[in-house]
């Protein structure tokens, strides 16, 4: 077991995944996706381990994970808030919704609150334009939002989270 800031990372979890994928063509992205599934993000130790086991150069691994939006190098929050910035949401005030959530959480899109409760992200389109403006918290849609309504849900979740 190797120690990291985020706690203990059990790299042996990766072995079956690497074994399964390492001999098939074009498997780097699926392998990284599977690794992220295991750890929630891709810490440096994991990337170095994949490099060691597969001989794929670290530079190429970093090239890939920095290119695609869905690879994360930092731990993410317990709840993921995705605010849609699609065209339908844009013309119906999606930007205002995002800004109010940013103000409320004190973070910008792409960041995670210090207590690791919430990660705030934007998405290009959730494909639920009939709910515009819309956001998703984990797997739950919240649609036809106003900026106020958007933060009320979050405030409620935060109250339920923090035992005071």
């Amino acid at each position, binding site marked *: 077991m190797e120690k990291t800031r985020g706690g203990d990372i059990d790299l042996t979890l990766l072995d079956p995944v690497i074994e399964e994928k390492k001999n098939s063509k074009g498997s780097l992205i699926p392998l990284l996706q599977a690794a992220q599934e295991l750890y929630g993000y891709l810490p440096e130790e994991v990337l170095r381990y994949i490099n060691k086991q597969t001989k794929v150069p670290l530079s190429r691994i970093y090239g890939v994970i920095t290119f695609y939006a869905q690879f994360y190098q930092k731990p993410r929050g317990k709840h993921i808030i995705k605010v849609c910035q699609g065209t339908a949401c844009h013309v119906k005030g999606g930007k205002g919704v995002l800004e109010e959530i940013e103000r409320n959480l004190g973070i910008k899109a792409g960041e995670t609150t210090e207590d690791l409760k919430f990660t705030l992200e934007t998405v290009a389109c959730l494909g639920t334009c009939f709910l515009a403006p819309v956001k998703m918290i984990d797997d739950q849609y919240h649609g036809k939002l106003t900026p*106020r309504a958007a933060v009320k849900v979050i405030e409620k979740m935060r109250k339920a989270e923090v035992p005071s």
Partner: protein
Amino acid sequence: MRFKSGSDLKSYREKLKQSLDPNRMSIRICMTGCRAYGAEAMRDAFKEELKAQNLADSVDIVETGCHGFCAKAPVCVIEPMGIFYQGLTPKVIPDIVEQTIKNGSIVEDFVFEDENGNKYPYEKDVPFYKTQVRVVLRNCGRINPTSIEDYIANDGYEAIAQVLTQKSPNEVIDVVKQSGLRGRGGAGFPTAMKWSFARSAPGGEKYIICNADEGDPGAFMDRAVLEGDPHSVLEGMMIGAYAIGSQTGYIYVRAEYPIAVEHLKIGIAKAEEMGFLGDNILGSGFNFRIILKEGAGAFVCGEETALIASIEGRRGMPNQRPPFPAVSGLWGKPTNINNVETWANVASIMLNGPEWYAGMGTETSKGTKVFALAGKVNNTGLVEVPMGITLKELIFDVGGGVPNKKKFKAAQTGGPSGGCIPEKLLDLPIDYESLAKAGAIMGSGGLIVVDNETCMVDMAKYFLTFTQNESCGKCVPCRMGTKRMLEILTRICEGDGRPEDIDLLRELAEKIKDASLCGLGQTAPNPVLTTLNQFRNEYEEHINNKKCPAGVCRALISFHIDAEKCTGCGRCRTACPQKAISGEKKKAHALDQSLCIQCGICKGECKFDAIYVT
């Protein structure tokens, strides 16, 4: 069960059909798009109520894909009567079971009502569905997409069975050629021509790819097809693979579409189990496999060569063409790529004949097109119409027009690669050439309607922000050019526009179009160019008079409270993040302009229309 021949399949289908009782009641519930609006709770309520009423054995619940009428979600249709209910909640389900399922009567409160108060209880009469012709969406909302039996019972896999026994690969390409099918991904390249390039390319190993990386914001056509009828895409790919001479197909699907991925996985596994995929398909000697690849979030991967790079496990950056993928594509082998909607057309064309397909549409654009209607339109949703109908028919007859009695301003087709079409061009027929002539493109089918409260400069800036963000950075015109354009648009929106900016934007746009490596850059300036052409006065207002006529660009507007209308309810006061609004209860409030950041929250909160923009 594994089918060994086409006749095997045929007799199985006959048996399936015979076992179906046409008078048996069923409830078709959308379990894809409507999930966002509580379809699962509605289904559970139906289940519970049917059980409680001892009807669980005599009424089926069919969990389908998208019905298209997303604006009215969650929706269901009760068969065999074809009664269409909308906007349901679990609370009203017992009532519907009691009145409609048990007594055959209609619950008026949940049928579709137009703005003149006319009610349409039957699905076939609802204006939204009436103009539509469903070829690609033939099974969407009708069958259970996770049941291969449902697909087979609806003539599924009959086309591949016939093709394998009755047609040579070249004959298949001929049929597609006669049908006039063109690529539905946006550019409209003739499908048969693409197939014949890949077929005649030298080399034993060839690949086909289904491009399911639907990335345009405001587009959800492919998602609906994959979620609602995955087998139609698989069957289309099988036919294409046979025509081209490929044994391996890939589906590159956006990872943001979890239901589509799930349904594809189920579909592929079932098709393998029944012998539609694998070795010696239906005893014909034809071998074909499909591999599913999930994208990792990059818009540029919708471009063919970038998509191939991504499947190969690299950064999704496009390559110079030629060589085209048909000659040197995936792993350097001849490769044919079509998008989801194109593939989903193929089986129907084979079954019904090319004349039938070519009988729909216009001279150069045959068949139907699926559109995702969104934005300031009443009937947001998914529609399929014959090519050649006018934009007006699409937006007003099918789409139900602009909500809240606001004025139609423009329709944006083709997302960030497309352009806007103003009111004066509303009689334009929807075909590839007419839309291109108007400066827009057909695109993949996203259609965003905007009204007078949308600023066209801001909209152009929005699209350019998107493309600039998604530019992969490989070629300079796209990487740097879009950045410079965005800077100019930003300063115009912020009130710092200069008189020469319009010419500068135009010059940059032309250069970027000419010099960019791939479609992303070549089309990125389109939204700017079309808004410049159609709404130049809005640009000039921003630049010369420092005004945003639509009241959107924050640096150019201010919010005011109409003291006559304000009731002093205090909603805006509590909502204002800047604490810029003050006032006593039940007395007209005041807004301190020095604190206001023009976020507009107060206007959205006001129930009395007392806040206005100048």
